[in-house]
Structure formats: structure tokens, C-alpha cells
């Protein structure tokens, strides 16, 4: 039996649908509430209206560092954090294996949870040998171990870890992060842990956040749970010596949370229900023949190109392939949230078209219909 047919998972899906719909409906309230909760929990909190704002907040924190490290995160990709920090002279280490391979090859990811799926073993080994000046055979274990040792060595001198989040509990002030590699655990234990998340990641409670993270894992990987679901609700602390509160025990002494709007408030609610599992991408007939050219940065497939419109505008969603979708809705039937992607794309196409981004083929058809009543000449 496929895991998504499991009655408990079906129930979880219904629960999460309800959580996501309610959360997006109450977004403003949750955003206000999470600020209060973070304050209670000693987490510094910022709301960034744009990617640039988020980058500047981060830079202000890391400007004295030489090297920082990050996890895989579509939100960090969205704001171009790596390029931004590199321009400022910082070195950024990708800690996710797939992302690290992509970083070394200067390519872009093809799937939100499996970014380097498109490289064969020889290509990866060649790249590593060239970039890390090693001699690794083209087998997965050697590749993994080589990259692991290299990243771990670099992490020794890193004071700041930057991650995304899969869900954020507004009433508890808790940040939930899903990972299998253990890299987010390492990053969250650095002196400073910075978390950047889209405002659409907000839910009410930690229980809700865990439900979202679990369902995302099921749909993204086919496994019931990931190896790790990390929860951060404040800096590392202890009161073991005469009940005196001391911060900075093993983990971060400073936790910074940045909620990113970057156009999300302009998006229709349904577009924000997404939990980022990537099911719409793997089920998309167009993505399966076109690949990441049907997408923008980490936002791939139909939902990705539609979302692109809200975060980056008409031109970007046009370039991302807003007209490549056949509106077949296979994604919607596979999506655990049943996001009506084709409807959203139709809406976005109207905006994009009005802004002057259209295709000659469609323009001709429109003209033909107007003049002769038929699309064809």
C-alpha cells in the first residue's frame, strides 16, 4: 500500500488542510502573535518586507564573520542570500549534500527535496576531484564521505548557521525544521542561529507545525517521518547552578528569526497553502519533459511559476514559464492540500498578459478569434 493511502496519513492530510487554510486566513494575527511569542522565548525577531531587507538584516549580524554555513532552503534561495553574502566577501558553505554538490558544480536544483537528482555519479566525482583537489572514485559513499569531511572541517571555524523552517508555531514561538542529514542540527548549535521563513509558514501551535512537517515528509519522500524534526524555541540555556540562568551552553546563544513577506501577502490564499512537498512537480507532465526551465529558482512546476508572480512580478513568472502549463490539474489531484494550481495560473496569466508579457502564438489566436470567430486562419 502506498503510504499516502494509509488511513492515519489520510487523516493527517485532512488535519493539515484545515491547519493551512486556517493559518493563511489568520496570517496577520499569527504574524503579530509570533512576535510576542519570540520575545517571550528570547528569540530576536524581524519582519522583512523584501528579500533585500532580509539580506541586510542577516548581513548586519554576520558582517564580522569570514565564513557562514547554511542549510537547504527555498526561502534563502529566493532572496539570493548566498550571492549577496559572497559579494560582501563572505564564504557561504552549503551543508546539504545535494546543495553542496550543486554549489561545487555551479548548477541549479531540480527538486525542492532532492536538488542534485540530475547528476550521474561520474559527473559528481569529477567535480569533487577538481574542486576539492581530491581523488574520489565514482561511488556514492566515497562522494558523501569526502564532502562530509570537507564541510565538517570548514564548520569548525563557523560561528553562524542559517536555516529555513518548515513551519513556525505562532502561539508557542517554536520553529520546526525537517532534515535527514543532521546538518540543521549542527547549524542550530552554532553561536548564532538565523532562521529565515516565509510568513506563509506560520501555523498556530507546535502540534500543528509538527503535523505540517510530517505530512510534508510523507509526500516529499514516501517515508513516514524524516530522521530529524528539529524544534528551536529559544537560545541554549541552563539553570543548573543554583537556579541561575546561564545562556550559551551547548547550543546557540543567539537565535534570530526573520519572517519574509516578499510579495506573499499579494498571493491568493490557496497559493499559500503549499507545504513544499514537491508532489506537484513530480506529477507534472510538463516538468517531466522540460525540467527546471519550468520554474524560478527553487520554485518549480506550476505552483512555482505562479508563486513567482507574487514574489518577483510579471516578467519573472513569464520567464519561469507561466504559459508552459497545460492546466491539466494533475498536480492538484496529487497535492495533499489540493491547491487549485490551474486556476491560480489562469489568474496570473491575465496579469502577466496585461503587463505585456505574452506569446505571439496566443496573440495571433486572440486576433483570429476576434476577426473571424476561430483561432485558426
Amino acid at each position, binding site marked *: 500500500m502506498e503510504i499516502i493511502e494509509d488511513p492515519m496519513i489520510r487523516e493527517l492530510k485532512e488535519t493539515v488542510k484545515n491547519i493551512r487554510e486556517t493559518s493563511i486566513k489568520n496570517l496577520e494575527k499569527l504574524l503579530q502573535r509570533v512576535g510576542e511569542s519570540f520575545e517571550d522565548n528570547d528569540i530576536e525577531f524581524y519582519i522583512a518586507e523584501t528579500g533585500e531587507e532580509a539580506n541586510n538584516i542577516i548581513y548586519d549580524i554576520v558582517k564580522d564573520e569570514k565564513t557562514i554555513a547554511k542549510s537547504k532552503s527555498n526561502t534563502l534561495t529566493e532572496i539570493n542570500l548566498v550571492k549577496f553574502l559572497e559579494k560582501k566577501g563572505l564564504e557561504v558553505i552549503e551543508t546539504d549534500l545535494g546543495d553542496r554538490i550543486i554549489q561545487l558544480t555551479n548548477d541549479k536544483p531540480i527538486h525542492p527535496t532532492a536538488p542534485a537528482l540530475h547528476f550521474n555519479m561520474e559527473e559528481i566525482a569529477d567535480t569533487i576531484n577538481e574542486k576539492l583537489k581530491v581523488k574520489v572514485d565514482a561511488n556514492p559513499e566515497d562522494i558523501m564521505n569526502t564532502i562530509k569531511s570537507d564541510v565538517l572541517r570548514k564548520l569548525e571555524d563557523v560561528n553562524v548557521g542559517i536555516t529555513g523552517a518548515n513551519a513556525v508555531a505562532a502561539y508557542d514561538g517554536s520553529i520546526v525544521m525537517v532534515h535527514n542529514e543532521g546538518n540543521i542540527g549542527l547549524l542550530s548549535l552554532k553561536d548564532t542561529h538565523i532562521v529565515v521563513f516565509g510568513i506563509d509558514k506560520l501555523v498556530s501551535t507546535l502540534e500543528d507545525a509538527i503535523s505540517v512537517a510530517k505530512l510534508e515528509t510523507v509526500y516529499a519522500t514516501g517515508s513516514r517521518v524524516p530522521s530529524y524534526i528539529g524544534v528551536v524555541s529559544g537560545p541554549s540555556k541552563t539553570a543548573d547552578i543554583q537556579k541561575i540562568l546561564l545562556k550559551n551552553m551547548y547550543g546557540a546563544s543567539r537565535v534570530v528569526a526573520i519572517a519574509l513577506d516578499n510579495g506573499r501577502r499579494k498571493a491568493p490564499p490557496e497559493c499559500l497553502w503549499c507545504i513544499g512537498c514537491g508532489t506537484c512537480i513530480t506529477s507534472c*507532465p*510538463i516538468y*517531466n*519533459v*522540460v525540467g527546471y526551465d519550468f520554474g524560478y529558482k527553487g520554485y518549480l512546476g506550476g505552483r512555482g511559476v505562479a508563486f513567482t508572480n507574487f514574489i518577483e512580478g510579471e516578467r519573472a513568472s513569464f520567464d519561469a514559464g507561466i*504559459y*508552459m*502549463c*497545460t*492546466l*491539466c*490539474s*494533475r498536480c*492538484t*489531484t*496529487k497535492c495533499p492540500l489540493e491547491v487549485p494550481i*490551474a486556476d491560480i*495560473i*489562469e489568474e496570473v*496569466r*491575465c*496579469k*502577466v*498578459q*496585461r503587463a505585456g508579457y*505574452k*506569446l505571439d*502564438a*496566443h496573440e495571433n*489566436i*486572440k486576433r483570429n*478569434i*476576434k476577426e473571424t*470567430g*476561430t*483561432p*485558426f486562419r
Partner: protein
Amino acid sequence: MDLIYFRGCMGRERVPEIVRATRQILDHAGVSYSILEDEECCGSVLLRTGFREDAKEKINENLNLFSDSRLLVSCAGCYRTFKIDYPRLFNVKVDVIHSSHLFYQLLEAGEIQIKGDLKVTYHDPCHLGRHCGEYDAPRKVLEAIGTLVEMEDHHMNAQCCGAGGGVKSAYPHIAEKVAQERIKQALNTGADILCTTCPFCKYNLKSHRIKVMDISEIIANLMGVPRSTKIN
């Protein structure tokens, strides 16, 4: 109530064999209907490609033409547009039936009799299946004709033919690649015929590797012919 057979742009101009076959069946079954000589676009292609205002103009004109008639359509795109978009945009209810549904009714009522021993696989058009929930009528017709074998992905999971949403006109090479994936699935069934119920699908799935037919053509071919006659 008057029945208008709304042929659709594809039926009128690209795959007239579907219109021909459909009219043969209607005539054979004694269904009275009319054709609009001045039939124009249903609005679908405009709606799908971001030209909503232009579509609304066209739809307004069409609504005057149809008055209270019942519409029969061969195209899944027309069907979705009449069924979902007309009410959504103009708060009107359009009485529309897809040809595959009418054929099933005629078959059930004994108005047409068909028998065959064909092995057929069925491609769900996205606009008929996923968008409107119509999966059964075409399958029941095909089961009456012979053996229906399903592809790997069918019903709600059916793969798209690749033509929809303006992709065929703007990105023909992508539409073609998507079609090839679907053809592979059809070939894997070992079926003699890949049947569909949408002219866009038929047009885009056209292949030299398997015969692709609209359901109307299969019926028209088998009506009144000896049981064992095979379609070439």
C-alpha cells in the same frame, strides 16, 4: 428542448472527422438537432491564455445565440468552459452534454447498437475528467464495444496529452514530447486503439505507432457493421 450540436473550433477546422462521425450517429439514432452556421469560439482558448476580457465578450455573444437550447459538444475544452466558466463568469447555467455521455445514453436506450471485439485503451481528457469529473460514460461505451484496458495512469491520475492551456500553439515541441509519453503508456497496454473524447487530445496524440480515434469515430465505424469487423 432544442439541441444544438456545438462542433467547436477543432471539430470545424482541424479534425472534421469527429463532427462527421458524431452527426452520423445522431442521424442514425434519430436525434434531432441543429448546427449553428455562424458558430464561433466558445471562449476556452482565450480564457486559458490570459485573455479573460476578450473571452467574456465572446461568451456574451454566444449566450445570445444559444438562448435556452441544450448544447452537445465533442470537445472537452468546450465542455469545461460551458459547464464551469460560463456560470462562473456570467452566473448562467448552460445545459451542456458531452457527446460521449449522449452516446452512452443512446446505447442504453437501444437507439444505437454496436458490437465489436476491439481492444481499446481510453485517454481521459483533462477537461472532461479531472476538471468535470466525467470518467464513466466513455468507458461504459467502450466496454460495450469490446475490451477496455487501462493505461498505467488513468481516471484522476491520467497523464495529459500535452495540448492544453495554449501549450500546443506556443510550445509545439513540448506538447509533442508530452504526447509521446502518453503514447508509450497506450502502447504498453497492447490495445489496438487509443480512444479519446477530445479533439485537442486526438490531434496532439496522433501517432504512427497506434491508431488514435475519437469515441464518435469508433462508434460510427461499428454501427451496423458485422460483429467481427476490425477497424483498419
